[in-house]
């Protein structure tokens, strides 16, 4: 009788542990399939902004199968790591030239990646108060 009880408890425990493991594995798999992997990071000329190019996640690759190099581009403020913008999935193949238009005063600047990605409404790299010597000379 006692033996039987112990047996039942063990099975419950095994079920519980198995459930935990399966759930953790499922969460990990979902995370793995949905996270883009970093291809490269680029700094803006005065290192104020940072552009990060990612290879698209597995799910995104499945959705855009006609793209040769499906990518996602993110723009960050280097100081403070604030995310300023994320692009949709674009094809990076022969379409990965970066243009930094960050010279004009005010917030009419932009950053372009290839033909498809463009981040607008950016502040100039010399936005006052800027401690950079290059900006003092202007």
């Amino acid at each position, binding site marked *: 009788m006692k033996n039987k009880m112990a047996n039942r408890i063990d099975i*419950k425990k095994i*079920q*519980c*542990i198995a*459930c*935990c493991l399966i*759930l*953790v594995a499922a969460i990990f798999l979902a995370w793995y399939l949905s996270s883009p992997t970093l*291809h*490269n*990071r*680029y*700094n803006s000329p005065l*290192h104020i902004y*940072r552009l990060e190019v990612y290879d698209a996640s597995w799910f995104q690759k499945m959705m855009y199968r006609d793209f040769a190099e499906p990518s996602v581009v993110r723009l960050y403020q*280097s100081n403070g*790591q604030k995310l300023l913008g994320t692009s949709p999935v674009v094809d990076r193949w022969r379409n990965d030239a970066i243009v930094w238009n960050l010279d004009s005063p005010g917030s009419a600047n932009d950053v372009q990646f290839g033909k498809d990605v463009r981040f607008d409404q950016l502040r100039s790299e010399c936005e006052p108060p800027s401690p950079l010597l290059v900006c003092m000379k202007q």
Partner: protein
Amino acid sequence: MVMQPKFFKKTHCFFWLLGGSAIIWVGWRLSFQEFMFSDNSPHMTYRVDVHHASILQRLIHYELDEPVVVRLYRIEPRGLLGKSPVVDMSGGTAQVSWHTAPPLDFNMVYVGRDAIFNNIPSECKNQKSLPGCPKDEK
């Protein structure tokens, strides 16, 4: 013997799951290295990523003011070429010096004072057409 209500056993399993995820989360948090900055080599062949040391590494290297970990990547094809131990980057030494292409072609990369990568192939090796690289002799 008092019969335990059925839901208790389910909650029990739930707590197992919660405890397990808490342990995973704490482990991840203790070993997480927050991104600090990155820099590209003059001809975009390599990239250096500097991360803040994790909480565990900070505890081990408590004598350092600003412990960081530096990694050197090759961009195409993607690969990790080197990883520094925990080094100090306090006192405005967050400078990356690339000695991988003329006029400083010594197959080395210095990050700050203490992180040094040796035997890094020159950037001229793959891209002979780069400005400043010695031309092929025929």
